[in-house]
Structures are given as C-alpha cells and as structure tokens.
C-alpha cells in the first residue's frame, strides 16, 4: 500500500519540529492533527514548528487540522508556527482568511528564532 504522508518529529526539550512530506488532505489530515495535538496535550511542548516545505497541497480538512492544533496550543499557552509554506497551501490560507491567525515563517531556521 502506498504511504500517504511522512511525518517525523524532532523533539528538543519543550520544542518540536514536525517535518511533513506529502499532501495534507482528506486522507492524511487526521494523521497530522493527531501528531500535533499529542505534542501539546501529552508531551507538554511549548513550541511546535510545522515544517511544511515538503507539503505541496493542503485542503480544507488540512486547514481544519491546523486550526485544531492552534486551538490546542492556545489552550496550553503554547505556540504553533507554520514554516515553509508553498504556493497552494499559502493560497488556501489566504482565501480562508487565516493568514493572520497563524505565526508563519519562511523556513524552520527562521521559525526557531521567533
């Protein structure tokens, strides 16, 4: 069976970088959401950076999982940062007027400095 999405987490104390390869769509959005929510809810992460440079496409279910992750972060007084947005995901955030809701960085390195 073809793997749908690759999610790898680098944890460093209270910070995590979640490297994602593949599209975040109807098939895969719950996988991403589960990882992000788990980092805030069960692993007490204070800052989670989503490395999205390997994500060519995010659909509305993917956006919903990002919003859920952000809600969880806010509940835990933590931060969720999106890094490396490609054109289509950026466009989806723009249309749904969520560009200002999220902290966004060009790269993971830039996100680590925020």
């Amino acid at each position, binding site marked *: 069976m*073809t793997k749908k999405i690759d999610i790898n987490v680098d944890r460093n104390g209270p910070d995590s970088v979640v490297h994602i390869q593949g*599209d975040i*769509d*109807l*098939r895969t959005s719950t996988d991403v959401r589960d990882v992000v929510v788990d980092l805030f809810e069960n692993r007490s992460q204070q800052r989670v950076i989503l490395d999205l440079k390997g994500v060519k*496409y995010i*659909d*509305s*279910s993917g*956006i*919903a999982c990002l*919003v*859920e992750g952000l*809600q969880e972060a806010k509940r835990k007084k933590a931060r969720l940062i999106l890094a490396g947005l490609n*054109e*289509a995901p950026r*466009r*989806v955030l723009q*249309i*749904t*007027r*969520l560009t200002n*809701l999220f902290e966004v960085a060009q790269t993971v390195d830039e996100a680590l400095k925020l």
Partner: protein
Amino acid sequence: MAHRVELKISSDPCWLPMVRAMMEQICCEAGFAEEDRVDITIAVDEALSNVVRHSYNGNPDGEIKLRWTADGGCLEILMSDHGQPVDPKRVKPQPPDEFRLAGRGALLIHATMDEVEYRRADGTNSLRLRKYLKPRTGSSYDQKD
C-alpha cells in the same frame, strides 16, 4: 476546437492526488497562468472531497464522473455523482470564521471559480464549475505623459 477529458472514479479519497495532478496538466493545456491553475485545482479538489465525504458519506464504492471541457477561453468542469442530495447550505460559501473547523470547502470553491452551479435531477448531483482565461495584458510598459 474544444478539448475534452472524461474520467470515472470510485469515491475513494486515494484518487484525490491523481485528480490534482491531472488538473495541473489540464489547466496548462488550456492556457491558464500558474495562479489560476492553483485556484482551479483547489476548487476541483474541494468539490471532489465534498462528494466523497458528504454525498457518499465516506463510502469508497460510489461512482464519481468528471468531465473537463476547454473551449473558447473557458474551462468547464462537470462533476456528477449518485450520492445523497447536497444540503443547499453546504453549497453556499459560509462567512469566514477563524476557529470554525468545517465549512471552508464551499468558500474555497466560490472564491476560486468564476461560476459555480449545483443541480440535482433524477438522483444525480451535478456540480458545474467554470473558469475563464484572463485576457493577456499588452506591453509591460505603460508610458503615461
């Protein structure tokens, strides 16, 4: 001369990436600029996801037909299925609500396409989407004295 592509797939979300990839090629052949190709792909993907999720309630054994027609500066996508009727409220874009978890699909479709038309007849849902090629501007120099 009109160009046409027809496709019949099952309502399994595994086909979403394939359809997105096809959209890129179809839009390229139809002469759309990159930003419009992204927009059209977003619309078709959202529409297809809605059929999978709502018309067929996640059942992967339903049938979905897609037809793309490029003719005279217009790309038309017709998507039809035999699933449950669509709640008309779902077809209309909802006002943006930052923390709403669902309901952005219709907004994405309406924001990216020039025309959106839903119809139900004889047990079939039909969604017709149209996007028009933007006229190319002339010289990049606009000298105004």
